[in-house]
């Protein structure tokens, strides 16, 4: 059938089962929005307050569902507003297709109104990108974009489409995507056997799992490996819920804000099995001092990660689930009572705990543990970036994959609320809570209006300490308590602001408010905001200072000494 470029875009989205699009209209995408009007029964478009919110929502949608998230923006500022969202998805290997309009073909390169070279701008932050200059290439390019986003190590792909290409007509034939995209590759048998040999002979194995476990749906295989090895496990920030954190094998995170048992296991293990991780500097801390006493088995789908940050003795290239299943089928269950006893002793000795700053004061630990007690595993938690993000990872026991949605690699403040909207749309059967700091909240709080408009029942939970807590913590430790620009003291009335946006508001002032307020917000069927006041000087601990070894976290910060 003969279709316009804009109609071809709609048909290609339907082919890919991409029936939700987050976007914002504009001049260069008028034809596309006209087609969206025509396809409004088949494609659900959610209009955010800002294109950045649309990009984060597409990202949150992808992380919560495993499907490819789609966002749409006009040329120029519309396109550049997507950039932070695309970079966030790129750093965390999230499958996303971003579609941007551009000026007419004849106006390209002439500094036309709302023209930017968005393919040039996004080259370093996309897995691949395209500009489509001929409507005859449009369907093929969009199919390629979805294929690339989901294949191998996943990531964002941008397709830039000049306005007249969306008006030009072309013959279109529907074509179902040939998923799955190729069989996941396995490392060669000899490598696998070497790994099996190493894992059979080791005495103190330690498994460290990254985001690849979530991306490849490998949680079951990971659990089986840990059980067969009788090994403790640590998950990176990107793998929260990739292993059931209520299980006694789980030691907590590793690295800058890792737990002491994880650090000790890293120090004492003889084999570290790293699955689907890129050994971020936030995990390895001082690279020269990381995993010195053990051999490293590194499993990853992207061989460019091997020996990039950490030298691995044995490298297994492949899809995490496929490789883990191959290892599991070749391993006999082992029992390592001495190692297990040692791990348990460390866990007893070094539990994570947080003391309140004052009588009746709310601690993030109490807040998050209460939330877990009330809603269990029926929640998805997204976060912004900072102290509240680390507290969420530390104190909320995630049990299933895709339940914590956070910007790990790029560390994007302002990510969480948009991502929460996307996650809630993707998973209507679960409730989404965005744990935010008061700093991050101010970055993209206008997306509350999107939650209200579409009645997306997210709970915006602001852990409000009136400061940029993570930066303040560093100023406390390394800048003699000179709190340059980190005390916010904003006049914002959060409750009034929420209500102005059409969102119900609650306040938590003392620990006695926590449970009743959380209950009310969870019972309320629409979007709400909870302003939870906490002390300004709560820290994220343990902590490995820059340059130190991941094995040696500090456990407390002496406030008086630091602020003299």
């Amino acid at each position, binding site marked *: 059938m003969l279709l316009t470029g804009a109609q071809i875009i709609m048909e290609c989205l339907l082919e890919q089962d991409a029936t939700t699009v987050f976007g914002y209209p504009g001049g260069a995408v008028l034809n596309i929005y006209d087609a969206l009007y025509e396809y409004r029964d088949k494609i659900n478009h959610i209009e955010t307050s800002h294109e950045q919110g649309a990009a984060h929502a597409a990202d949150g949608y992808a992380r919560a569902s495993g499907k490819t998230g789609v966002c749409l923006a006009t040329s120029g500022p519309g396109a550049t507003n997507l950039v932070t969202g695309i970079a966030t998805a790129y750093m965390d290997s999230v499958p996303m297709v971003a579609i941007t309009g551009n000026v007419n073909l004849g106006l390209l390169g002439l500094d036309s109104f709302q023209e930017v070279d968005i393919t*040039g701008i996004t*080259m370093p932050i996309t897995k*691949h990108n395209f500009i489509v200059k001929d409507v005859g290439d449009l369907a093929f390019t969009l199919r390629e974009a979805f294929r*690339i986003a989901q294949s191998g190590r996943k990531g964002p792909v941008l397709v830039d489409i000049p306005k007249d290409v969306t008006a030009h007509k072309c013959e279109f034939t529907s074509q179902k995507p040939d998923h799955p995209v190729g069989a996941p590759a396995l490392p060669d048998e000899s490598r696998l056997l070497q790994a099996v040999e190493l894992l059979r002979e080791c005495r103190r194995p330690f498994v460290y799992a990254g985001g690849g476990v979530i991306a490849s749906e490998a949680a079951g295989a990971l659990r089986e490996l840990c059980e067969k090895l009788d090994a403790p496990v640590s998950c990176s920030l990107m793998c929260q819920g990739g292993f059931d954190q209520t299980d006694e094998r789980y030691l907590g995170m590793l690295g800058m804000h890792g737990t002491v048992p994880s650090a000790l296991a890293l120090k004492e293990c003889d084999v570290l099995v790293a699955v689907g991780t890129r050994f971020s500097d936030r995990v390895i801390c001082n690279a020269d001092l990381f995993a010195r006493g053990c051999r490293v088995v590194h499993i990853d789908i992207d061989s*460019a990660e*091997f020996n*990039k940050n950490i030298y691995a003795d044995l490298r297994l290239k492949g899809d995490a689930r496929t490789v883990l299943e191959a290892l599991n089928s070749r391993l006999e269950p082992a029992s390592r009572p001495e190692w297990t006893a040692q791990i348990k002793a460390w866990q007893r000795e070094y539990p994570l705990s947080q003391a309140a700053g004052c009588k009746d004061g709310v601690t993030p630990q109490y807040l998050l543990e209460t939330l877990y007690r009330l809603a269990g595993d029926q929640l998805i938690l997204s976060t912004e970036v900072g102290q509240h993000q680390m507290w969420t990872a530390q104190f909320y026991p995630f049990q299933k994959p895709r339940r914590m949605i956070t910007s790990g690699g790029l560390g994007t403040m302002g990510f969480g609320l948009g991502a929460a909207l996307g996650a809630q749309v993707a998973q209507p059967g679960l409730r989404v809570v965005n744990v935010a700091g008061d700093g991050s909240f101010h970055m993209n709080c206008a997306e509350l209006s999107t939650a209200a408009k579409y009645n997306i029942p997210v709970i915006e939970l602001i852990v409000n300490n009136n400061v940029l807590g993570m930066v303040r913590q560093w100023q406390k430790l390394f800048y003699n308590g000179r709190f340059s620009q980190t005390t916010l003291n904003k006049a914002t009335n959060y409750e009034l602001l929420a209500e102005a946006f059409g969102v119900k508001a609650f306040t938590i002032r003392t620990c006695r408010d926590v449970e009743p307020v959380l209950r009310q917000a969870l019972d309320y069927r629409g979007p709400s905001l909870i302003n939870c006041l906490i002390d300004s000087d709560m820290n994220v601990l343990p902590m490995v200072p820059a340059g130190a070894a991941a094995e040696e976290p500090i456990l407390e910060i002496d406030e008086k000494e630091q602020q003299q």
Partner: protein
Amino acid sequence: MSDTKATEYILSVRAKNTPGVLLRISGLFSRRCYNIMSIVAAQTEDEQYSEMIIVVRGDDRIVRQVDKQLSKLEEIEQVTVLERDSAVVREHLLLRVCRTPENSEFLVTLANALHASILQVSPTAMILELVGDATALNSLIELCKPCQIEQILRTGAMAMSTQGVEAC
């Protein structure tokens, strides 16, 4: 990992001949802090593809990283690290040098001795051309220096594997 010595590696990169492919490759090098010594790119026998010869400075680990990161780009078909022992390597040099009645004969002799061509002669300048490996080009440049060099243009290295074309 950092104790290995930095040397020059020659990469032969076959890529789809699309607009922007060179930008993708050079962008990758700059953002990952790899050192490009030279890059030569042109269409191949199949016009859908370009062949790029990139000379990289680094250690063994770096060159493996470059290889793997390049291979991840959608448009790249193949990356080959060429061994100098099993490849012919050539660069192209154009050199304009001041010509005087005193040095004229010297320059002609020099050009003949090093198999350089004389492309243009004027009363005050001479343009020489030489194709060869870096050593040959460098010696011509060194020997011309006393005569005052006005301009040097040189391409980066081109290299072709000799495998399958072993000398008899």
